[in-house]
């Protein structure tokens, strides 16, 4: 019986984009020395990394009242969401802290607004408005952000239409 193991060293660390599928909750494998290579990030995350660091490090009362820093878990979930929604050609969103430890991801372009409130992990309220048509939509989301991806595609389409006829 094999009762203690080391992972195969065969090529894993050298395969581009290889990533472990789970975090190390198993107790079987001894800690492995592994070079940590930063995976390529989207332009949005490259632009927003510093901003996310900043809003999670805000002092208590940062807004002149009793404002709390953005919670680490909310920021991490937002980072995950931003990376998931990335579409090349759409400018990076603004990230705005809420005084209750939440944060908002926003695009306001060409009279088209998208606001995504990240209240915490799996707690998202999203709103969009097309000022030209007056159309508004609000969604409460937990795990599936397919609809938001569609909104970002619409934002890109609006942008391209404006470029063409603007």
């Amino acid at each position, binding site marked *: 019986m094999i009762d203690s193991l080391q992972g195969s060293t065969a090529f894993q660390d050298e395969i581009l984009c290889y990533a472990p599928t*789970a975090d190390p909750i198993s107790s079987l494998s001894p800690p492995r020395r592994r070079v940590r290579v930063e995976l390529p990030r989207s332009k949005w995350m490259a632009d927003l990394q510093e901003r996310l660091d900043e809003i999670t490090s805000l002092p208590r009362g940062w807004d002149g009242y009793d404002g709390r820093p953005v919670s680490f878990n909310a920021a991490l979930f937002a980072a*995950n969401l931003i990376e998931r929604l990335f579409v090349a050609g759409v400018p990076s969103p603004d990230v705005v802290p809420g005084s209750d430890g939440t944060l908002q991801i926003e695009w306001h372009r060409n009279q088209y607004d998208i606001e995504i409130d990240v209240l915490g992990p799996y707690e998202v309220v999203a709103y969009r408005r097309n000022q030209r048509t007056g159309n508004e939509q609000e969604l409460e989301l*937990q795990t599936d952000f397919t609809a938001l991806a569609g909104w970002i595609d619409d934002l890109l389409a609006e942008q391209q239409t404006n470029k063409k006829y603007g």
Partner: protein
Amino acid sequence: MRRPDNLPDFSKPPLAEVVLGVQFSPVPGYSSVDARQVWELFKESFPVVEERPLLAPQFETFGGANRLSSLGFHVGPPPVGSRLWFLSQDANHLIQFQSDRFLTNWRKGPNLQPYPRFEVIADSFERNLQILADHFMAAFKYQIDINQAEVSYVNLIQVQEFAEAGKWFNLCDSGFIDIEALNTNFVQVVKDREGKPYARFYNEIQSVFSVEGKRKAFQLSLTFKGKPATSGIPSAVAFVRDGRERIVNRFRDITTAEAQEIWGRLS
């Protein structure tokens, strides 16, 4: 908890480890000095303590074009604290705890023990999670708010040569190829009855060696992870039970009839 009648069963499964766990919103006001009180809750059955690095929060989300987005990010100041292992005297059972995670592991080694079966491990997991939740309520006025659950089975299949993969797995027929190493993984998005995704099912076969490098085995890891329907313990336990059924059925589907005979298939 009773074993479902329709699940395949084995008298000698190649199981090396079973892990059940939850992730929850961090306990407000919790700090490292409070860890001792948590250990006191489990000390009688888990008298040995070890410290390990923190596990980063993980979120299973769906939709959007960027499929790699569930990989970890680092934002803000580096997280402080540690993950604690509370081990049973024989070191075959352990609880893993940090301020936003609680996991239960059963493992076959280091003192070789027969598999106690999922129902026993799951009952212990539920009982201990409830003890922890009661402590959070009493000490921190915090209602446990579970945002993710997971169940993982790790199987070790000892082999002479990795070229035997086809004998064990339906996925592989290596034929005459002299395989030095094998790594296969695939991920399945699991949807509810309305077609909404709520979990991921990670499947991984990896060639591994014993520490001294002389013995070979395939490590088959099956992990089911996602957001339970609600944030309470019953929902997390139901999620884990659902994941276990999927894992056992997947194990049946991807291993060969010949292998299952060796492992003593009962039903």
